[in-house]
């Protein structure tokens, strides 16, 4: 290279560097967000299995539909102008609750929940010829979803023992009271069809249960009420609120793709109803629980992490707060859920039972073929005791639900019987009124069937406790020393209709 060329190169380089320096003169500023972190749970959590599906009605009675698990709650809504319906595992016989309107439990809707699914009758709410129906089924699970029933007493009261602080509770009266609910973001309790709420229904969601007021929808004296409580389970269920914009395309984050969602405007001034969408429903559709057909502008879609809303005022009123309850489809065990390898329901018969008589306090009736429960004046009450050998808990499973079933041979309407865990051991051949053990302070109540048949009590928490200490149950009238109301149940010695304990593992 000649000196001249070198000089030229140097000059060019100087110019170039200067130019580059001008380019490098990038003034910079940063801002940052620090300390973000994620950590997962140490073990796989239990979950409530959920499944959805669809079918076309044919007006054939006793139609069975398969679900991948024993459902404990099933909700069905048709595309026709019929109300949505719900049945819980705690409901006895052929009965389900219309979720809108002042209608008592009704036959021929969801007739039963079976170990393999559910059965519907011929009612147009669930099985009119040619009508499309969509359903969602839930399985009870400890820490995720619980259900039970109680007998109203007309006084404000609280229920505990749910096992978690519920984020959403439904109460379903057997009578003509309205099906109602309360979500954690709501300041009152709403029915499913249009209303402005009622502060005397579900009055609060508590640390381990919920409270009810004196509304006939939740607490008429002597009436049986069924309840379902859901917990928020991250990634599986979401109970939240969102603010409406009035614009189509509004989204609410759930963190998962929902399979089922319920929304309503939290409005205590202007009546509003609840809307629901099941992911099996046609694209864009959602439905009220009331006797109305499809909506196309309410819950319009389920995306991978959110619910999408249209402009329907129920779901999306500009400036209003709305509540959203959403569930993810999870019909299978494991896979991020429970490690229960063999979920399902097992039924065992009593291994000890008997009844005791206040009028004959030293007598033993352990070998009798009946169990007598009586409320009677003159120190003549009777009580029944029953105990079961509990089924072995399958590996990785826990008790999701348990039901005590006794065959009531002589039901008496208007009586309420309670099942309470017994505090100390007893022997079938020696138990009598005098030596009968005391019972737990809390109990579960049930009402007799209309005719001879199995009477049931939801005893989930009691049975969970029995896996630690099992002294069985005592059955007694909730108001003893009143009239003369003897009810007889088949005992284990009867040879038929033996006392049963059904335990669902999950």
């Amino acid at each position, binding site marked *: 290279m000649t000196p001249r060329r070198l000089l030229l*190169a140097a000059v060019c380089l100087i110019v170039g560097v*200067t130019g580059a320096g001008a380019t490098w003169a990038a003034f*910079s500023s940063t*801002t940052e967000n620090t300390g973000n*972190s994620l950590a997962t749970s140490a073990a796989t959590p239990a979950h409530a299995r959920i499944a959805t599906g669809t079918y076309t009605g044919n007006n054939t009675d006793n139609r069975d539909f398969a679900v991948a698990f024993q459902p404990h709650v099933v909700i069905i809504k048709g595309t026709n102008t019929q109300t949505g319906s719900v049945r819980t595992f705690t409901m006895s016989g052929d009965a389900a609750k219309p979720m809108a309107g002042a209608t008592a439990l009704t036959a021929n809707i969801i007739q039963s929940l079976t170990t393999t699914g559910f059965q519907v009758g011929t009612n147009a709410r669930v099985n009119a010829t040619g009508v499309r129906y969509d359903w969602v089924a839930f399985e009870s699970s400890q820490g995720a979803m619980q259900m039970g029933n109680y007998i109203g007493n007309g006084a404000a009261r609280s229920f505990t023992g749910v096992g978690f602080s519920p984020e959403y509770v439904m109460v379903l009266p057997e009578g003509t009271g309205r099906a109602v609910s309360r979500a954690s973001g709501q300041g009152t309790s709403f029915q499913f069809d249009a209303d402005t709420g009622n502060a005397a229904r579900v009055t609060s969601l508590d640390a381990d249960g919920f409270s009810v007021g004196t509304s006939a929808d939740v607490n008429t004296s002597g009436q049986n009420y069924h309840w379902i409580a859901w917990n928020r389970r991250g990634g599986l269920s979401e109970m939240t609120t969102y603010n409406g914009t009035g614009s189509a395309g509004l989204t609410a984050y759930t963190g998962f793709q929902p399979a089922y969602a319920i929304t309503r405007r939290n409005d205590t001034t202007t009546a509003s109803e609840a809307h629901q969408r099941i992911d099996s429903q046609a694209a864009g559709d959602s439905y009220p629980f009331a006797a109305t057909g499809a909506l196309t502008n309410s819950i319009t879609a389920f995306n991978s992490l959110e619910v999408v809303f249209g402009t329907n005022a129920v779901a999306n009123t500009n400036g209003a707060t709305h509540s959203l309850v959403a569930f993810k489809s999870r019909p299978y065990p494991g896979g991020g859920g429970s490690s229960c390898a063999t979920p399902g329901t097992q039924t065992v018969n009593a291994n000890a039972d008997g009844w005791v008589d206040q009028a004959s306090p030293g007598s033993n009736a352990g070998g009798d073929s009946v169990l007598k429960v009586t409320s009677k004046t003159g120190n003549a009450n009777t009580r029944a005791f029953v105990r079961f050998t509990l089924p072995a808990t399958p590996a990785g499973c826990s008790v999701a639900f348990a039901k005590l079933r006794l065959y009531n041979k002589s039901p008496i309407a208007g009586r309420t019987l309670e099942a309470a865990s017994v505090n100390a051991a007893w022997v079938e051949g020696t138990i009598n009124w005098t030596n009968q053990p005391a019972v737990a302070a809390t109990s579960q109540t049930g009402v007799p069937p209309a005719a001879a048949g199995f009477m049931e009590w939801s005893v989930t928490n009691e049975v969970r406790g029995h896996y630690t200490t099992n002294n069985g149950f005592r059955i007694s009238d909730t108001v003893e020393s009143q009239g003369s109301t003897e009810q007889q149940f088949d005992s284990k010695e009867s040879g038929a209709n033996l006392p049963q304990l059904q335990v669902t593992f999950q």
Partner: protein
Amino acid sequence: MRSSTPRKVLATLLVLTLMGAVTGGATLSALASETENAGNTFAAGSVAITDNDGGPSNPLYNLSALEPGQGAERCVKVTYNGTLNGTVRLYTDSTIGSLGTQANLTITPGTQSGSPAFPSCAGFTPDSGGNLFNGTLAGFRTAHNNWATGLADAGPGNATSWTAGNTVVYRYRITVADDDTVVNKSSGAHRFVWEGQNQ
């Protein structure tokens, strides 16, 4: 040989020039130095960028005991102030733990109505351009870990540059995989950096 002396002189001049250039570059780089204190600004005459997180003790997310499939939605507002039009890039230079490959991250720019407190996403409306990033947290770290590889956001409303007073709300959706294999894992503390430079 006669040309050897001038050549040496020129070579020396060239080396000095290069050294000067390097020195000059270093000086210019100093003008663009960064601060790592969240919320602080380095407005070297014309560029400043801030966020609304309120300080280093307020992460977008600090989630523990997550169950499979669980996650969260959080938003942060970034504001650009400066006399020069700028470019903003987003990156993380933090070490991401074992959960990073199973944590799905979606970052969506948009706007937010009202004045919700950090990190609420109430009133968030995404820009029409869609997500800025959708992948795993670990994938974000691999792809965007400094200014050079930072994820460029052209500006509010899909603009071509950021100008004084511009704000963008970034919606973070972080969700762990719906899979048993996520249990008992963590990501470790990590930061997100928004860096603005003039165009």
